[in-house]
């Protein structure tokens, strides 16, 4: 399995993702410069965290015009697994590959800490190894994670089971106190209808080995490998 990790000017978690894919999972991985259209035969594409184009105008707003995004959209349309982490999630929203938008965090402050999430859809390309209803802990670090969409879009997302992760407390209770950024309905991660495109604000790439005190994120990458093997 080969991971393709897109590098925008300002991406800063590309090497973390590369490390997880190669050193921890023993997979192949290649960086894909945002100006390239060739995905280099990748089986999985990751849009990593960071500050693509310095987040000028809005987070992800300029990155979505990068030539590579046409290839990523075509890859996703053909069923290829695409994961957007943090800034990568913001790029997916701006590109219209997932619905909704990010606003500045409730409280107007950057949030950098561990959060707990309840898994609500284990049928996506990146969550098959997280049983529904389980609680996963991952770190967040963002200024714009306050997810929003029109009420009818939120209702449709819920109805179609496209809310993948919801902020919760350690016991799995979805409460306002457990919501780090004010995201609508505590939404931390979403999928497209087909389940092959997933975006989330927390960082599985930053918690994928015991060395860093938490390896909960590793299964996200392993889920993609398992899903490809099962094809």
């Amino acid at each position, binding site marked *: 399995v080969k991971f393709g990790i897109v590098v925008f000017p300002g991406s800063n978690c590309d090497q973390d993702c590369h490390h997880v894919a190669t050193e921890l999972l023993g997979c192949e991985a290649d960086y894909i410069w945002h100006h390239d259209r060739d995905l280099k035969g990748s089986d999985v594409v990751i849009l990593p965290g960071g500050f693509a184009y310095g987040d000028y*105008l*809005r987070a992800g*707003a*300029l990155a979505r*015009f990068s030539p590579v995004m046409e290839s990523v959209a075509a890859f996703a349309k053909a069923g290829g697994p695409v994961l957007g982490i943090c800034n990568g999630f913001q790029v997916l929203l*701006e590109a219209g590959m997932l*619905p*909704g*938008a990010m*606003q500045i965090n409730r409280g107007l402050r950057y949030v950098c800490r561990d959060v707990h999430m309840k898994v609500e859809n284990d049928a996506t390309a990146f969550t098959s190894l997280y049983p529904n209803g389980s609680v996963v802990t991952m770190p967040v670090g963002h200024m714009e994670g306050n997810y*929003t*969409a*029109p009420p009818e879009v939120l209702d449709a997302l819920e109805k179609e089971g496209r809310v993948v992760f919801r902020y919760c407390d350690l016991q799995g209770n979805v409460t306002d106190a457990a919501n780090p950024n004010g995201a609508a309905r505590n939404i931390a991660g979403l999928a497209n209808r087909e389940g092959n495109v997933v975006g989330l604000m927390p960082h599985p790439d930053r918690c994928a080995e015991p060395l860093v005190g938490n390896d909960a994120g590793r299964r996200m990458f392993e889920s993609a490998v398992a899903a490809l093997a099962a094809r």
Partner: protein
Amino acid sequence: VQDVRAGKVFFIEVAGRDAKAAEADARKMAEELLANTVIEGYDVKVVPQ
């Protein structure tokens, strides 16, 4: 005071376009990039020079 809202203003100069075409250009820019219409609205004013 009943409400306060902060927004962005873009001053865009275009040459060789009549007012109608310039407005169409600006609306396209707003729709595709300058505003995220999920969370933002926009307004275009053409000021001939």
